[in-house]
């Protein structure tokens, strides 16, 4: 039985995610694009980088869209970066792309937060510190203000502010982590965030959702 399925849709560096999960003690980590393997996994990690449009078409090609919806409804489910953005209803990139619509809200470009007074470099790249908004089992053992590694040009604007678990600051405050029921999603990369990130992944592999 697959312990953790790391969804592979051909974008970005998935090896680091699998290695980080193994490093914190996860067993049977499989990097896969196979819908049946994903459906049978105890936990699902949905990582990724790049653009929502490419992500959605890759998911379609691999026939992963339905299974992602099903597992996100009942298994501990971790979305990371693009895997967070793709959970939302819609992204404004490429003049509007429908996403998985598992959580209500949209994905917006940082240029909206860039002003003549404060010109933002895009992507938002590097270490930023989190401000907790809500308690969550996955924050256990992580200090307030902990630093995490981000790299993204778009950010998530949830329709329901109760989804927001943590915020970070870049031009304005944006959602750094969101969650609902058994879904937990981060804009930052826990697999690249040293001790704090590893702790979050360790919390995830012990979380019942």
């Amino acid at each position: 039985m697959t312990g953790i399925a790391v969804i592979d849709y051909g974008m970005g560096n998935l090896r680091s995610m699998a290695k980080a999960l193994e490093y914190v003690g996860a067993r049977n980590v499989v990097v896969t694009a196979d819908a049946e393997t994903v459906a049978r996994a105890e936990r699902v990690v949905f990582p990724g980088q790049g653009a929502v449009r490419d992500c959605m078409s890759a998911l379609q090609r691999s026939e992963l869209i339905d299974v992602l919806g099903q597992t996100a409804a009942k298994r501990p489910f971790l979305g990371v970066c693009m895997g967070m953005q793709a959970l939302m209803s819609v992204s404004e990139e490429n003049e509007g792309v429908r996403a998985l619509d598992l959580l209500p809200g949209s994905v917006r470009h940082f240029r909206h937060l860039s002003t003549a007074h404060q010109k933002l470099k895009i992507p938002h790249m590097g270490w930023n510190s989190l401000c907790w908004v809500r308690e969550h089992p996955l924050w256990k053992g992580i200090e307030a203000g902990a630093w995490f590694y981000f790299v993204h040009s778009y950010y998530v604007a949830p329709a329901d502010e109760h989804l927001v678990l943590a915020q970070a600051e870049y031009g304005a405050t944006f959602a750094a982590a969101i969650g609902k029921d058994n879904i937990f999603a981060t804009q930052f990369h826990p697999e690249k965030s040293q001790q704090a990130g590893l702790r979050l992944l360790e919390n995830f592999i012990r979380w019942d959702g």
Partner: protein
Amino acid sequence: MGLAKRIIPCLDVNAGRVVKGVRFVDLRDAGDPVAIAREYDRAGADELVFLDITASHEQRDTMLHVVEAVASEVFIPLTVGGGIRTLADIRRLLNAGADKIAINTAAVEHPQLVTEAATRVGSQCIVVAVDAKRVSEAIAPPRWSVYTHGGRRPTELDAVAWSRRMAEDGAGEILLTSMDRDGTKLGFDLELTRAVSEGAGVPVIASGGAGNLAHLIDGVRLGLADAVLAASIFHFGEFTIQQAKAVMAEHSIEVRR
């Protein structure tokens, strides 16, 4: 709080071994990339850059093994550069565990590689490395030209315009090296760094010339760099990463500590 300025040690790797040596107290093997990466991770480095200076093509695959080994143990961003020519090279390194790939000569020879790579793997993975050398007369307005092939070949390209173009074409970051300052320990070329940083719209890593901690501060405050790259000042134990961060924080620069 907000986005921290990054400190990035850079390691030159030849045939799988770190060259020039790195002196850490607890390090037995000064050439072992995994041990060095582990030490820098522990010391608080924000990212690592591995520059493959392997001359022979046959030995290039050793870099893949280095990246695999480092990425299995060190969970901070890894950038790999040196000799990358094709999309297949980029994919192989990403699959081995690299997070970002720095392209230099190939970007000049085939600019469409940057666009294509950014489309396929995302801008966040693509760093364009720009080696720049001042070509203007002392009293004239400053101008810098882009050099390729490890700084051996001049081009007609203006470094500021080229950096901007690369960002527009899909580079997610510019790794900017002043060839005039590289190895001098006289500090970064701040005019160059500032011109590129203001023009490019993407994060800029300042490189070439860092000789003390004040240079790092200048790179950020006067050069407007988003990250500072340094080799010798850390490798030979002159300063620790934490000392650098402490001094930067004293100067009101946001750093991860």
